[in-house]
């Protein structure tokens, strides 16, 4: 019969129309500004610069190596190297970007800068509501606007961020182990020629003791000397915000407590589990 096909098709439309009142999966749209779909973890929009700690300027991981500037396909990154150096996350003095601009009106969100960065310094943001009435200045982001804390990175890409942190902590531990080994070798060498070194190390140890006059802190002073290596070992998933930026900064008592608590909690747990059995 002529018109059969049309009626069949209209039946489908009617099914969809009626269904949209009943079943939820037929309602495929959301009312955007009021209602938002959650972004997937891998979502990317424009790059940002990661910094550790609280001070964005001190904590920037970028060392202005300019690899991203070179590899960026549309060439939207502009970097100027600094004249002086600041310590990076392992405490090694590095150049930092005196100027780091990204023109997001040119950027095409391809993520190649992230892939080529050897320092885990540049990552992709998920912010997309970036409309501005300033066509040039508003879309040219400088390093202050680009800087985001490591916590923010954890918030938007949790899995990726913890992987990165683990990698950085591992690297740092390696560097420190190397430094320690080098120091020990130096110490061994010094022991071989005893006359030169012993008074010097005593002189280093002495000024710490008078500051904390109590005899109980003598052991603590020794711990402080060992602290950097221990801290990384204890707090591996969370890569020491605050340390690193100022080099081998002396750890406060609070930091040590933090480093100790996980171990304590672990020690307590089996006991709590064991109790009901007994």
């Amino acid at each position, binding site marked *: 019969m002529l018109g059969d096909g049309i009626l069949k*098709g209209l039946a489908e439309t009617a099914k969809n129309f009626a269904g949209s009142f009943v079943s939820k999966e037929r309602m495929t749209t959301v009312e955007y500004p009021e209602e938002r779909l959650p972004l997937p973890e891998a979502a990317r929009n424009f790059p940002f610069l990661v910094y550790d700690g609280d001070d964005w300027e001190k904590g920037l991981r970028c060392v202005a190596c300019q*690899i991203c500037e070179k590899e960026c396909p549309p060439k939207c990154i502009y970097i100027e190297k600094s004249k002086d150096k600041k310590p990076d996350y392992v405490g090694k003095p590095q150049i930092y970007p005196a100027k780091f601009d990204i023109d997001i009106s040119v950027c*095409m969100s391809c993520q190649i800068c992230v892939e080529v960065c050897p320092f885990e310094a540049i990552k992709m943001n998920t912010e997309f509501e970036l409309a501005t009435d300033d066509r040039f200045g508003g879309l040219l982001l400088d390093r202050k606007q680009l800087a985001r804390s490591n916590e923010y990175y954890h918030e938007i890409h949790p899995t990726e961020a913890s992987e990165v942190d683990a990698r950085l902590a591992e690297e740092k531990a390696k560097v420190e182990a190397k430094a320690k080994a080098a120091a020990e070798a130096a110490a061994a060498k010094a022991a071989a020629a005893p006359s030169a070194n012993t008074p010097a190390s005593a002189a280093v140890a002495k000024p710490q003791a008078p500051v904390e006059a109590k005899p109980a802190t003598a052991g603590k002073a020794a711990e402080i000397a060992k602290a950097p290596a221990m801290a990384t070992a204890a707090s591996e998933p969370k890569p020491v915000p605050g340390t690193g930026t100022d080099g081998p900064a002396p750890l406060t008592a609070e930091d040590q407590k933090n480093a100790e608590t996980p171990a304590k909690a672990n020690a307590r747990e089996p006991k709590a589990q064991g109790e009901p059995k007994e």
Partner: protein
Amino acid sequence: MSSFGIKNEKLAGWNRPPVFESDGEGELLEVAMGPHHPSTHGVFRMDVVLDGERVIKLKPVFGYLHRNHEQLGQTQSYLANMPYTDRLDYFCSLTNNWAYALAVEKLVGQEVPERAEYLRVILAELTRVQNHASTIGFLLQEMGASGTPLMYAFREREKILDLFESLTGSRMMCNYMRFGGCRVDASPAWIEATRKVVAGLPAFVDEFERFLMTNEILMARCQGIGVLRPDLAVNSGISGPMLRASGVNYDIRKVDHYGIYDRFKFRVPLGDHGDIYDRYMVRMLEMRESISILNQALKDLPAGPVMDPKAKIRNFRPKAGESYGRIEAPKGELGFYLISDGSPNPYRYRVRPPSFINLTVLEDMCLGSNVADVVLIFGSVDIVLGEVDR
């Protein structure tokens, strides 16, 4: 091959331009369709000469979206060109990625891990499904079924784009494949989500078929219109669903077995008449075949790395040589030709875009038909202007 429904016998000589004479009543009318004609998905113009309602001459004018893609590719590194290939055919960025990666891998003799090959097949077939669905939606939109079929197609496409976004980070500009594998691995959750979407696809195709396949208006407007003969199709280098709708059995997945396509069982749907309806049907059937490939690939997806550890990301300098990588993109044969002289950027870079070459027979298909059918024929070619103009 006889019931083409062509009224004008002068079309018979396909290899010489058909001559149309005015019947002496009235004058010929020249119409510029475009550059912003609502029927087009990009910016495109057709200079049409009409005798009454009938098309006498049609000249496609393109280049409005030209952005120097090939020259750009020659001035920057091999990796930096990858995101630009996303922007050729922005509906199928993953197949573009694959074709380009294939060309470079051929150039340097790079192996691809098993899992990456499977992921590539899965993504390419998902791309094919969403491309065909939206093409059909657009075709029907151009027929005057404004809204509903296109929205049904886009509803399904959105599910696939969500998969792309959760894997690659971007809905359309995926930039996912690399020379020697894929950029990131797919999580088990992603595989599970893909299984779910693929399981829902046959229902969608069924619904679409019930919705439109026997629709009398669609048949009246599509059957026998815009016929492309197989000999003309072969001679002008047409590829993809357009070629197969004309009855030529040529699918690069079957011919080249690039990637791991020799492991999957699938059939190549062929048309009989080469008209718009056949092109529509070939795409519908290809979606079903793609779903079957997807099921097979998801079933035996192996574990392992997705990137060859020896593959280089930075300082990539292939030795001097040339290569041509081609795949069966949803729109036809997509090829990338590269000449390397040992420097970090290609010496010559050339794209063989299926949309562009499929568009060259537009005049032959349109001659003698009504002006309203021109829009329909144009829609059935399935082009994306980003790829035509490059």
